[in-house]
């Protein structure tokens, strides 16, 4: 006898009542959440302790004497080697690099995506495929020639130079995103604008740009995060005067001089992660949309 119930009890994927399975699901999610949040928690509490407390060796413990001193030090006088200028300068360097790079690359990406989606011509497909492959190529492949080229034209180690390179290497992803976005916009909208007498730039400006606002927000998020988080371009091309936070943070954290100030290091780490973190938690779903849009196309 199979003991088949005469009444069909709803079971399977989506039961509404609290069962053992439900408890298990929440338990798993909570443990996972703990794993993902733990480093963030440790970062924050470490940055609020003094070194004496840290040496006790319990990284999970809440600070017993709250201190903001590591933050002040990190911002104003954290050391990389013998040079103790803090993160402040690098923070503003990152802003100076990120703002123009992002503005330019998003604008160019939108124009490229628009031109490639609606104004088809021979060679466009080839350009796009090369761009697509290019999005994945390791920077190491380009670095030596780029050092030579930028040195030759006097852009090596300058702010405009590093901005230009950021724009260049953002173009593939930005173009890809906007082309996919415009590819999903009905061709009829474009045709209607042509019948109405709009030309290349007026169609872009009056018809396409207004409907691209969601895509632009997503692109901005991806670009700000990506540019802010860049390390290699900043390391090689920014020069001593324009070091972004990532480069400085690395120098601070891995500084070989003196005793390591772990609390200062963690404060500096949070400071350099602040912009992407705030953007992430403020923008919420938009960020997720950006990541899926960027990752799924290829």
């Amino acid at each position, binding site marked *: 006898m199979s003991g088949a119930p005469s009444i069909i009890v709803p079971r399977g994927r989506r039961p509404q009542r609290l069962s053992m399975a439900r408890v298990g699901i929440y338990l798993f999610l909570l443990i996972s959440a703990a794993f993902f949040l733990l480093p963030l928690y440790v970062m924050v509490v470490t940055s609020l302790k003094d070194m004496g407390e840290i040496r006790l060796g319990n990284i999970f413990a809440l600070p017993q004497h709250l201190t903001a001193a590591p933050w002040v030090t990190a911002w104003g006088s954290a050391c990389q080697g013998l040079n103790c200028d803090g993160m402040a300068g690098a923070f503003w360097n990152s802003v100076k690099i990120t703002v123009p790079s992002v503005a330019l690359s998003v604008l160019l990406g939108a124009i490229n995506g628009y031109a490639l989606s609606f104004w088809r011509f021979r060679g466009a497909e080839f350009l796009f495929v090369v761009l697509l492959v290019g999005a994945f190529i390791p920077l190491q492949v380009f670095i030596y020639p780029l050092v030579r080229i930028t040195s030759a034209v006097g852009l090596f180690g300058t702010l405009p130079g590093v901005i230009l390179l950021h724009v260049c290497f953002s173009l593939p992803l930005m173009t890809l995103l906007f082309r996919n976005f415009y590819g999903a916009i009905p061709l009829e909208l474009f045709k209607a604008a042509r019948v109405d007498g709009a030309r290349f730039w007026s169609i872009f400006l009056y018809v396409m740009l207004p409907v691209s606002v969601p895509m632009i927000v997503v692109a901005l998020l991806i670009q700000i995060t990506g540019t802010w*988080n860049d390390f290699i371009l900043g390391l090689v091309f920014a020069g001593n005067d324009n070091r972004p936070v990532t480069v400085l943070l690395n120098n601070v954290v891995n500084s070989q001089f003196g005793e390591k100030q772990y609390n200062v290091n963690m404060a500096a780490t949070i400071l350099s992660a602040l912009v992407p973190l705030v953007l992430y938690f403020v923008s919420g779903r938009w960020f997720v949309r950006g990541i899926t849009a960027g990752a799924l196309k290829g």
Partner: protein
Amino acid sequence: MPLLIRLRRILPALIALSPTAVFVFGIFLGCLIWTCVISFTSSKLLPNTDFVGFAQYARLLTTERWIVSVQHMAVYGVAYVVGCLVIGLLLAIFIDQKVRFENTFRAIFLFPYALSFIVTGAVWQWLFNPSMGLNTALAGLGVAGLDLGLLASPDTAVYGLVIASIWQGAGLVMVILLAGLRGVDPEIWKATRVDGVSPAKTYLWIVVPELAPGILTSVVILGIAAVKVYDLVVAMTQGGPGLGSEVPAKFVMSLLFERANVGLATAGATLMLLAVLCLLAPLLYLSYFRRGAR
């Protein structure tokens, strides 16, 4: 006449695309070819045109440090991809159970992906600190026999990198696969219930195969990230202890900027490029195939 008219019509488009075209064909293809060419010369500090065939490659492939780098990359790559996939898939499946606070959970699992590798490396370097990090904290909690000072030993440093990068990247896989799960026809659940198939089996035999495109995308993206891994190593271990976590990307950089061996460096970079292209090939082939079928 028609040709001229057509040209005039698309001229603005050509102008608009010209910066990108210059980038693609000038900088991009140009630098790529330049690097490849140098890799076949005997260039040291300065590039020369003394072509030596595959000599640089031969030397590179017998260089101990390169061999170790590639081994580390392979171990790191496999562990990273598998780890991210397994954890990402589990997170996606569990989050897809109509749970409360779904958005909060998703935000928590994904936020590390918004952080740079340098930040990730800095945090985990601290967590793995042998004398003050997780090790001591766990000992204080009474957990013994678990050495989490992974970065202190050349044998385990790579696994330290793996854990840090899974923390950073698993959320990405979750988001990609969650999108796939949401795309699965909900009627499948009704059908399997009618047919008496258990949820676990439904996931294993019906849903996961449906996720194949998402899984493939994830593997390619993560695999390429593994070939390119650089920032994280620099921030976490500087390739050490000894050469315990040296990777190709870092080796190439040090050949370029510390050892001034351009020929060997470009040969290494070219091999990295080949690895990326190999990983990319199935995806490109598939998307081309799909387009062809349409």
